[in-house]
């Protein structure tokens, strides 16, 4: 099964990359753009019997390593399998 993990800066945490891109978009003429946030997209394959098993493993991976709970939020999607 494939796990797609989305890690994003937590609301309220300064995201200088997002802010810089927001300014760049404005200077290109894209009006009304706000709240640009830049995160990380991680894909991985996992041997799991059921989507629930994959989900449980992915959740642990995010908490322990893939995201820093102090500054980031995460969500993931499971694809393939039953």
């Amino acid at each position, binding site marked *: 099964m494939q796990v797609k993990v989305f890690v994003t800066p937590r609301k309220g*945490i*300064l995201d*200088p990359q997002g802010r810089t891109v927001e300014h760049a978009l404005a200077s290109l003429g894209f009006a009304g753009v706000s709240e640009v946030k830049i995160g990380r997209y991680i894909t991985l394959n996992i041997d799991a019997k059921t989507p629930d098993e994959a989900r449980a493993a992915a959740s642990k991976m995010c908490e322990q*390593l*893939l995201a820093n709970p*102090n*500054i980031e939020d995460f969500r993931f999607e499971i694809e393939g399998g039953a």
Partner: protein
Amino acid sequence: MKWGVIRFPGSLDDFDAVYGLRDVLGQDVTALWHKDESLQGAECIVLPGGFSYGDHLRCGAIARFSPIMKSVAKFAADGGLVIGICNGFQILTEAHLLPGALTRNRTLSFICDRVHLRVENAKTPFTCTTRAGDILAMPIKHGEGCYVAPEKELLQMEERGQIVLRYVDAKGDATDAANPNGSMRSIAGVANERFNVFGLMPHPEHALEAMLFGADGRKIFESIIAFQSVPEHRGQMRAGAK
């Protein structure tokens, strides 16, 4: 006093830390490999600067799972002294041995500069030879030094005195212009609740000799040595060192 400097793949200030402690300060220093588990009787552990594991994923995120970090966590839990400099600070936050996190500098650029720091709490093992309000000059060199923590936690840290060093200007004011990386509340160095673990982005090990940069960094290491020279303190640490 016995020191252990941990060498991770990608560490690069480990040599300066070993040199400074051994050759400048006359200490007994052992370089510890990250795959080992023994701290070899060290009374203070130094996590040096650098780019452990290439800073992949997040700075310090991989290094915290090195085998030696289990021993460091136990050592810290037993009251042992641990200091993390720059990448070492990042590793300590990732390992949850220190609160908060270090994120990209607000300028998005790598900064190599000389900064002034104000001692906010001089009653820690890492600052006990200074006085509150003292200004120390040290170099910084980092891309991810912007200290962040939830506002509620920052308030508690302020109350407990865990904010040990702040970026200030030459006059000692914590102005926005003197904050090189956008750190919340101009935070440059923090301690844990028990004050035996300390992390800072500036480099005291690069500021030990007047002819090279200035010797204000000595005050950090001399504080640790002074603290550890008190027999009761040493007894506590010995119980922790393995």
